[in-house]
């Protein structure tokens, strides 16, 4: 298991290759990369606050759960905090499993949990000021799938 919480950008392709190379016997590797999108009134940057300590702990807990439930060979989570420009990578998940269904479901599960159970808070900073992104009912409902 690899969990990294960092301000620095990361190279999703290089991370995917390193993850796959370190995992023997996997038939399926799924990756998800989240990228900062522009907003209607022009995003200066996305600011992400987090809860040091609890973040790593919460993510490690959900990765442990995914490893066991889907029999993964390995899983990777990288999540940035700080000020991120439009187009920059925010976070990444990768899962490796013998077969495709497990790799897909586990990555989907980790994304849903990261969204609503990892202590990050996003703020959109535009010329008009900073606005906290509100969690949606959909995000919370997504957890009920698991």
């Amino acid at each position: 298991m690899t969990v990294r919480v960092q301000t620095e950008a990361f190279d999703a392709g290089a991370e995917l290759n390193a993850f796959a190379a370190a995992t023997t016997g996997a038939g399926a590797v799924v990756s998800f990369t989240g990228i900062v999108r522009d907003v209607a009134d022009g995003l200066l940057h996305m600011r992400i606050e987090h809860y040091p300590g609890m973040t790593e702990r919460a993510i490690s807990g959900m990765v442990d759960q995914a490893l066991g439930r889907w029999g993964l060979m390995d899983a990777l989570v990288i999540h940035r905090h700080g000020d991120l420009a439009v187009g920059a990578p925010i976070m990444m998940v990768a899962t490796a499993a013998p077969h495709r269904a497990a790799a897909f479901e586990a990555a989907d599960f980790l994304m849903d949990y990261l969204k609503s159970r990892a202590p990050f808070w996003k703020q959109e900073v535009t010329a008009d000021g900073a606005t906290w992104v509100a969690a949606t009912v959909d995000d919370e409902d997504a957890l009920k799938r698991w």
Partner: protein
Amino acid sequence: MIDVLYFAWVRERIGVPRETVDTQAATVADLVAELIARDDYHAAAFADLRALRVAVDQELTGFDAPLKGVREVAFFPPMTGG
């Protein structure tokens, strides 16, 4: 003594990211009542508890969680990671 941490708009309303509180509160809800009594900033931050989440010693929990032996309590809005 309990370290109380605030994040996102909760931190902004209260004005500080953390404070150390000398309290005998038995539960999170009791601690919240003490904090609300402190000043208008705390009262504003805790005006609607449904909009808040709480973690005790870095584990997400409910407002009825006991505080015996606890070192750190954090209040924040629903998380928006991913």
